[in-house]
Every structure is written in C-alpha cells, then in structure tokens.
C-alpha cells in the first residue's frame, strides 16, 4: 500500500476535531495483531506440553531414562546458539530503528547463519539417534517386538521428535521470513521510519527462542542428574 495515506478527521458537536485511526499505517495495530498470532503459538505448544506432562506423570522413570540418553552437549550448544541469534536479531532491530540500515542487514544475516547452525546441529543429533535405532518408525519405538522400549520411553521419543521437529519447522520458516525481510529492506519498503515488519519478525524470532527455553530443559535436563534409578521431582 502507498505511504500517501492521510488520516481522516472526525468533528464532534462542539466542533472539536478528532483524528480517526484508519487501518493504514497502524503501528500499534500491527504490533497487537502479531502478539495475538503469537498467543496462538502459546496455546499450541501449551497443549503439547500438557500431553508431555501427562505422560511424564504416568511414566516418570522411563522419561528420566530416555532424557538421560539424549545428547546434552549438542542440545546445550544449540541453546547457546539460539541465545546469540536472539541477540543478533534484537541488535538488528535496534540498528534499523536508529538509522543504520546496513548494520541491520548484517545482523539479520548473522541471525540466519546462527539459525542454520542450529538446524545443522539438530541434524547431527537426529542422525545419531537414527543410527542408534531410535527414530520414528523404527523397531525401538514400536510395540511388541524384541527391541521395543518401555511405554514411557516410546511416548517420550514420540513427543521429542514431534516437538523438536515442529520447533525446527518454525526455525525454517523463520529463516524464510528473514530472507524475505532482507528483500523488503533492499526494496526500500522497510525503513528506519517504517519498520513494523522488522519489529514483528524480531518478535517471532524471540518466540522461537522462548519455546526452546522450555523444550530444552524438559527433554534434555530432567534426566541429567542421578540416573541410578532414583526418581526426581514429584
């Protein structure tokens, strides 16, 4: 839409004029709309955490055992990678708002690189798990055969692949929209004075980070302590 929008004015009975908020150029509306969209993601992942907690309560030891078998080093590296990517994304927005468009573009590229690194590391993790026979569709996660894991571990890994998979899917989408953002900046549609798109994409990336802040400890850390068979938590 063009930027020649001039807001309308409404006159009351005393002749006083009030500016009408139109749908164009509504930065607050754009922010509100994007936050509402992110609430849907909260509800979605919230329901998944509900499923996870339900099965954790039924099979505590199995969950802890399965958690202990995950690669905490790779998972931890990914946590730090994602943390830094949130920083670069935020700095990019700050630079854009202050007028440093080139710096902003650089920071967005840095975020894309870190996001890709995250996916590559996750790829290594999943490949290693596949090679250990632990993957969707393989015997260990089916029931009734000689390699079958106990119920709790099957459910743990089912949710593990689902949730980290969906999270990774959101990262792929994030990379996509960051590339699109770079295009919009190059085309002059996103500028220091008109940056709601950049603001919202930064919010999106923070949400992706936020989800991982809960996914990581839930899957990787609950089995990190004494794994000699003692039940932790409640």
């Amino acid at each position, binding site marked *: 839409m063009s930027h020649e929008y001039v807001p*309308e004015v*409404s*006159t*009351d*009975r005393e002749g006083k004029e*009030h*500016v*009408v*908020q*139109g*749908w164009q150029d*509504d930065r*607050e*509306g754009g922010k*509100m*709309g994007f936050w*509402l*969209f992110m*609430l*849907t*993601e909260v*509800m*979605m*992942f919230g*329901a*998944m955490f*509900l*499923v996870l907690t*339900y*099965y954790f309560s*039924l*099979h505590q030891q199995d969950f802890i055992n399965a958690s202990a078998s995950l690669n905490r080093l790779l998972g931890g590296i990914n946590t730090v990678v994602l943390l830094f990517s949130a920083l670069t994304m935020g700095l990019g927005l700050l630079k854009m708002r202050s007028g440093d468009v080139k710096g902003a573009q650089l920071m967005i590229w840095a975020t894309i690189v870190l996001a890709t690194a995250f996916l590559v590391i996750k790829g290594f993790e999943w490949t290693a798990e596949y090679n250990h026979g632990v993957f*969707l*569709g393989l015997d260990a*996660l*089916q*029931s*009734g055969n000689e390699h079958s894991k106990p*119920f*709790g571990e*099957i*459910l743990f890994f*089912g*949710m593990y*692949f*689902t949730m980290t998979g*969906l999270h990774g899917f959101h990262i792929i989408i994030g990379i996509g929209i960051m590339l699109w953002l770079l295009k919009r900046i190059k085309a002059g549609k996103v500028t220091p004075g008109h940056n709601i798109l950049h603001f919202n994409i930064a919010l999106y990336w923070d949400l992706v980070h936020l989800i991982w802040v809960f996914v990581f400890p839930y899957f990787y850390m609950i089995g990190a302590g004494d794994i000699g068979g003692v039940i932790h938590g409640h």
Partner: protein
Amino acid sequence: MSKSYLDKDETHCAIGHPKSAFWQWMLTVDHKRIGIMYAAVMFVFFFVAVFTALLMRVELFAPGAQFIDGDMFNQAFTLHGVIMVFLFIIPGIPAVFGNIVMPLMIGAKDVSFPRLNWFTFWLYIVGCIIALSSLVTFNDAGAAIGIADTGWTFYAPYSLNTDTNVITTLVAAFVLGMASILTGLNFLVTIHRLRAPGMGFFKMPLFVWGIYATAWIQLLATPVVGITLILAILEKFFGIGIFDPSKGGDPVLFQHLFWIYSHPAVYLMILPAFGIMSEIIPVFSRREIFGYRTIALSSASIAGIGYIVWGHHLYTSGMSDIAKTIFSFLTFFVAVPTGIKFYDWIATMYKGKIILATPMLWALGTIITFAIGGLTGVTIAMVGVDIHLQDTYYSVAHFHYAILGGVVFLLFAGLHYWFPLVTGKMYNETRAKIAFYLNFVGINLLWFPMFIAGYYGMPRRYFDYLPEFEVYHQVSGVGAIVIVTGLIFMMWNLIRGWRKGEKVGVNYWGATTLEWHTQSSPPPLENHPKVPYVDFNPYEYHHGEPVVKFDENMKRID
C-alpha cells in the same frame, strides 16, 4: 446515482488493479464483498450437508437397510458433521456478518488487515477443496466414496486404525481452523483499534460485543484442536504413540484435547447469534435494549466460562469422579449469563411497539427453540442423567435445537434483517414469513420426537434400530421433509429478492446503529462519507423513533 460497493470498479484489490469484474471479485479486499463470497460458498456446502442428513433420515424411516449399508451410513453422518461444523457454522456468522456489518457498525472503513482478510477467505476455500477431496478414494476397484467414517469427532483409536480418508479430512480441518484463527485475529485488532472517535467499548453495538467475544475463542481455542489434529496425523503416519494404547498412549487424552476446543467452539457459534438477537429485538420493539451492560458483560463471561467446561463431553469416558463433578458444577454456571440475556431481551419487548416483520419472527422463534436447546443442555449437564442420555438421540436433539434452532435460525434472522443493507433491495415479505413457519414447524417435528426416543434409549449414529423406535423416526422423517422445503423456499425467496426485488432506500427498518447511516443503499465502497463522532448510545429511541440523525457529512442534526 451514487455508486455502491457492488458496482464494477468500486473495489480495492490485493494485487494490482484488474479491469474485469470477475478478477475484481476474486482479488477484492473489501470486507463487504468478502462477506458475500463467504455466504455464497457456505450456503452451497450447507445444502450439501442438509441433503446428506435427508439421506440419513430417509434411510432411517424404517428399521433395517433401505438403500445404503452401515459403513456408508457412518460416512454420511461424518460428512454431515464435518461440513456443518467446519465448513458452515464455524466460519458462520463471523465470516458473513462479522465481515460485512461489524466494520460499518464501528464507523471503520474496513478491517485492520484487509489483505489478510482476502488471504483468509482463500485459505478457507483451500480447506473446502481439501475436505471435498477426501470424498473420493481410489482403490483397485476404481473410485469409491472414501470419506472418513469416524464421526466428525475423529475419536482415537478408531480414527487411527480405519483406512478411510481420515488424514485428508484432518488436514482440511486444520486449514479451516487456521482461517478461523486469522478471522478472529483480524476482528480483535479491528475492534480494539478502529472504533470511531468517542466509541468506547460500552458504546459499541451488542453485535460487535458478540463478535469480540467470539474472536477471543477463535484465536485461543482453535490452536488446541489444530495441534490435536496434527498429533493425530503424526500418530497415523509415524506412530508416535500418544493416542495408541498399544504403546501406552491414552485415547481419552485425545478426547480431552479435542473438546478443549470443540466446547468453546459452540460458544463461538452462539455468541454472534446472540449479538444478532440483541440487534433485532430493539429495532422491532422500537425501544432501547434493556440491560445493555449486562448483555455485553454476559457475552464476555460466556466466552470465559466456556473454556472451562469441556469435560461434560467426557462423563462416560473414564474420567475420575472428582473431575466429573468439577465439570458439571462449572457447566451449570455457563447457563446463567445466557439466561440473563433472555430476560433482558424479553424485558426489552415489554411495553415496546412490536413489529412482526420477518427478522422479528425468526428472532422470536429462536427464543423458543434455543430455550429448548439450552435447557436440555442443562439436563445432561447433570452427571447422573448423562450416564443414561450420553450418545443417545437426546444429545443429538439438544445440540440441533441449540445450533439449528439457535445459531442457524439467528443467521437466517440476520439474512432477513441486513438484506436491504447488503443488497439495496427487499424480498417478498409474505413468502419470507411462510418460509419461517415451514422451518419452525419442521424443526420441531424433526427434533422433538428425538428427545423422547433418546430418553427411551435410541442410540445416536446407529444405522439400524429396534422396531419400538420406528414411530419417532417416522415423525422425524416428516419433519425433515417440512424443514428442507422451508429452507429451499427461504433461499429461493432471498435470491429472487436480490435479483428482482424492489429497490429500497437507506435504513429500511428505522434502526439506530451506524451501519444503517450510510448515504446510499447499498453502501458505497468506503462506507461512511465521514467518520462520525460517537457521543451517543447505540440504541437510543424516543417514542419509537431513533434519536440520532446525521446529515450527508455525518454531522449530527438532532
């Protein structure tokens, strides 16, 4: 002659500036045109589902198999439910009148995100196409009817094991859910940001309150069923185990997750309908509505309480007694705000000058049919009673009285009320009234016997039944013919009215809300010529006449 939003070239488009009328419709971002397109598609699917139901009623007219077998019957009620719920009633009033009327009512020129609105409509169409594609399956013998046979509720573990097109239907429902979420999002931002200067929340028309409360449910409840459907798809494809008992998964968990959405969904259906009732009653009683604030707040509380009562669909599924008790207790609460609305509407009519035009007939008829639907819901909210009546025709009669006799009847009321606004013409009033009476008699003939049949034990979703139930099915069968006749007659009358009806001027009914105060009928593309300053309440009448009057610059001249 001033131009209306329906005229050629009188529209804004998402992409470019097309010259042909066809592409102007396909690419339009105008909320009024989008609402009309939703209505056109939704009603086509509505009649497909109605005929599926008629098919079932004819089959069930006598015990034993008449012309379809048990498997196909299961597919029939699944198709009926999937279309009625996901393709018709959930987009429902928000997609049609939320789009067409709500921005006009708040003095806005469009919704907050018109291009998103355009995208959402076409996302809905994609969902419909995917749902249609689940109808056919190709096997060794050629093409067959492949639609899922699980019921629209897709309960595990049957939905995981059946080889009908469950996954396609789940994908369709997911896409349609996304469209619902985006509509809710758009409306929430619109109502927060684009109200005319001076219009605080408590000066908004009650229909806008209804759309607002509904939008919160669309936004926050739908993602839960979205992820449930995805988990079911992953379960079918990858065997992740969470709903499969052979891996320790719990099918009751599916029910919890499914109903965490699907119960709020019924409030999503009824709240805009109640909003329409709150618009029609004052206009046709020529009086200010009684209890504006309580009706507004009751919409908000129904939306809120509606989130926490889903377990009453699971009374017989193996929940603990304490959970059953909690849900029963909370379910009784949700009837209270609805009751408050009913008392307020009746109080509005008291000492009013009642005009029994078609919209008012539909509204009054709904007061009766929804009262039956709502009160029978309270009966089965009681755990002990529900043990006997769960999954019988009693439940089916309850929700059809509530949804058909509540939501759909009020949708029809809205069609007849806003018809002159949307089209600039009027339908034949006499024929419209006959259509109403056919529908009203039909719904009661069709559904009331089912309360009795259900009480005596007739199970739902059953293809065959014991001879003692035959009389109920026969009466229902007659009622089905009557109501289908009424529906077709009503639609024909409305379509004929749009094509050949007499042209009418602005504010045909003498209403007070802003959508009636445009300068031409139908409204121009940009709605009001100037946004008015709103320092008045939405339903101000004095001696039966609207108080607030505007000149052609939207300045008050009363």
